[in-house]
């Protein structure tokens, strides 16, 4: 637990309005910080600037029509959300998926995960004041976007997955590009380490900053790399393997202290693990065969009942909770988003830290605000 600070006299505390148009609150987060000098006494996030009502929209749309919505919640890992929704509905309605489609989806999802982590890497270092790694990371991320653009036609909100497959087959160029990208990314890691990971200033800005204890993480429901940085190897891809993740050989990186440096290391290692998954998938992918189960009707109606489907997005455990009344419209479509809990824990972690640390912690936790607002 963070060390308790003596509450200062009331007249010493002033309120600083951080956001929603602050350079480093990533989107539209607004945090009301009660400060004593440079120290934070209380943090109160104000949310909802990006609320679009996706859950209500889900009730008014057929399952197929809801697919484009899913990539607009967490716009940095839109394909993972597409993938999760496709998996959820496939499980719910009992739709067969061709093997080739499973591989394509896995490769694209992992590419999307890497791109999300790369963007996080860049913005995090930029929050700490280092501007250059941001553009190096974007340079690499552009490569992923080119690859995904080639198969899906979009660079951000993909809507690539369909129930029973994907909307477009991949070609050999895609496979070559992906292989080339993995080699390229691996050759860039040493530079990243020299430029950022080993940098003494970076280490001082992150070590023992924003420590989340496992108990605290459990209390607040923290998931994803933030939880793994506390030493709990909880990853949906291993714990409840979905799609074909049980066939791949990969590890779940964990940290020890749960501080910002551990979160950083976990994410960087996760990129490497994603590379491993992609490599294995590329090797084993069936050469031909269907990429889409075309028998899925537009007004597809799962049987009455409910389904809770959890998967691992780039930011943590994400879940679709669907209730069907047997009609083509879901009766309830709830989305459990990881950033919601991950941001909530900050109200606790922020107390007693400096403003500069708050920025570092906020960056290290990797929240996407529209995902929380839904």
């Amino acid at each position, binding site marked *: 637990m963070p060390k308790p600070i003596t509450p200062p006299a009331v007249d010493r505390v002033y309120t600083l309005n951080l956001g929603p148009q602050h350079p*480093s609150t990533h989107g539209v987060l607004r945090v009301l910080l009660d400060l004593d000098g440079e120290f934070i006494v209380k943090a109160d996030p104000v949310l909802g600037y990006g609320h679009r009502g996706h859950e209500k929209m889900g009730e008014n749309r057929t399952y197929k029509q809801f697919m484009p919505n899913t990539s607009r919640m967490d716009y940095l890992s839109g394909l993972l959300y597409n993938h999760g929704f496709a998996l959820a509905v496939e499980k719910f309605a009992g739709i067969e998926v061709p093997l080739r489609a499973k591989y394509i989806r896995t490769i694209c999802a992992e590419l999307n995960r890497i791109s999300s982590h790369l963007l996080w890497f860049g913005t995090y270092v930029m929050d700490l*004041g280092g501007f*250059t790694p941001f553009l190096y990371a974007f340079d690499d991320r552009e490569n992923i976007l080119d690859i995904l653009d080639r198969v899906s036609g979009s660079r951000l909100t993909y809507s690539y997955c369909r129930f029973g497959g994907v909307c477009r087959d991949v070609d050999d160029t895609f496979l070559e590009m992906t292989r080339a990208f993995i080699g390229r990314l691996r050759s860039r890691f040493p530079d990243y380490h020299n430029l950022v990971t080993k940098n003494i200033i970076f280490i*001082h*800005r992150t070590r023992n900053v924003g420590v989340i204890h496992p108990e605290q993480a459990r209390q607040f429901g923290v998931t994803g790399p933030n939880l793994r940085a506390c030493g709990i190897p909880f990853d949906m891809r291993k714990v409840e393997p979905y799609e074909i993740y049980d066939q791949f050989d990969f590890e779940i990186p964990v940290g020890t202290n749960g501080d910002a440096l551990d979160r950083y290391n976990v994410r960087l290692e996760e990129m490497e693990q994603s590379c491993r998954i992609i490599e294995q998938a590329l090797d084993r992918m069936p050469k031909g065969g269907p990429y889409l189960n075309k028998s899925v009707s537009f007004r597809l109606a799962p049987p009455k009942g409910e389904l809770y489907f959890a998967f691992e997005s780039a930011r943590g455990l994400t879940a679709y909770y669907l209730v069907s009344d047997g009609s083509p419209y879901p009766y309830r479509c709830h989305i459990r988003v990881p950033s919601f809990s991950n941001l909530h824990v900050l109200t606790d972690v922020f107390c007693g830290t400096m403003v*500069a640390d708050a920025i570092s912690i906020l960056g290290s936790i990797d929240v996407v605000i529209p995902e929380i607002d839904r």
Partner: protein
Amino acid sequence: MGSLVTSEWFRLVLGLVIVLAFSQLNALFLVWLERKVAGHIQLRIGPKEVGPFGLLQTIVDGLKLVGKELITPRSADSRLFPIAPVLVFMPVLVGFLVLPFAPNLIIRDMNVGVLLIFAFSAFTVLAILAGGWASNNKYALLGAIRSVAQNVAYEIPLLLAVLSVVLMVNSFQFSEIVKGQERVWFFLIQPVAALIYLICATAETNRAPFDIPEAESELVAGFHTEFSGMRFGLFFLAEYTNMFIVSAVATSLFFGGWHGPFGLDLGVPGIVWFLAKTYVLIFVIMWVRWTFPRLRFDQLMNLSWKFMIPLSLANLVVTAIVLKLV
């Protein structure tokens, strides 16, 4: 007539005019250079549209700033607020008066030149504090407070590092110091002092990784958050002019001023040597900025009080003892 041209007053007025023109143009050039260096470090081009290699880009930007409305926040201090940008630029100009560009190109070769330059550079912090305070904005105030603490902390090791050079030549006069480096540049004899000087100078000019007074990811823009138009422009130009001055001082104190290396002038005029070395130092400062993340405020203080000050003190003592013994 002849007496007018050679008179001190004429010299001073002419010098001031040249300084004004040079400092402005130089600052505009440095802004362009910074953007180019940053661009190429980040694998992009930087300005390229206006003029050859985009050289006129900053002039156009400056014109745009001049044309912008000067906004004074309603709750700002209406008298202090407009003064602050002027205050910040004024001391920077004074620095040019004593810089030894070449053997005969010193506007006023005072015997306390070194002292004068540091006295006036300490003045900028007052202007920053005025600007931050007058804005009546929490971000600006935080930036101003940080700036004061930082400048106070870094002035000490800075001056201690300079003192060890002064001890070696027994003079505060720039021309004397430069003359003392005809054979060997002082940074070879005083590497620790040179390093400390460069680090502290970076901090003095609020450059990354010590740019916490204006840390854009924390304080939006720090002390100049509320300034718009040319008021912001003055802060901006002052930062770059300041950078030139600290680099020029470093050149004359540690890197031989107008001398070539090891007394080899190679027929190149002194001013070329001087400016070349200054711009190389400026490039290094820019290079550092685009490489490192920013320090936290308390770490910045730690660095000064725990590392810089003891080191510079030790360096000064060792210098003094060695000089006494030799």
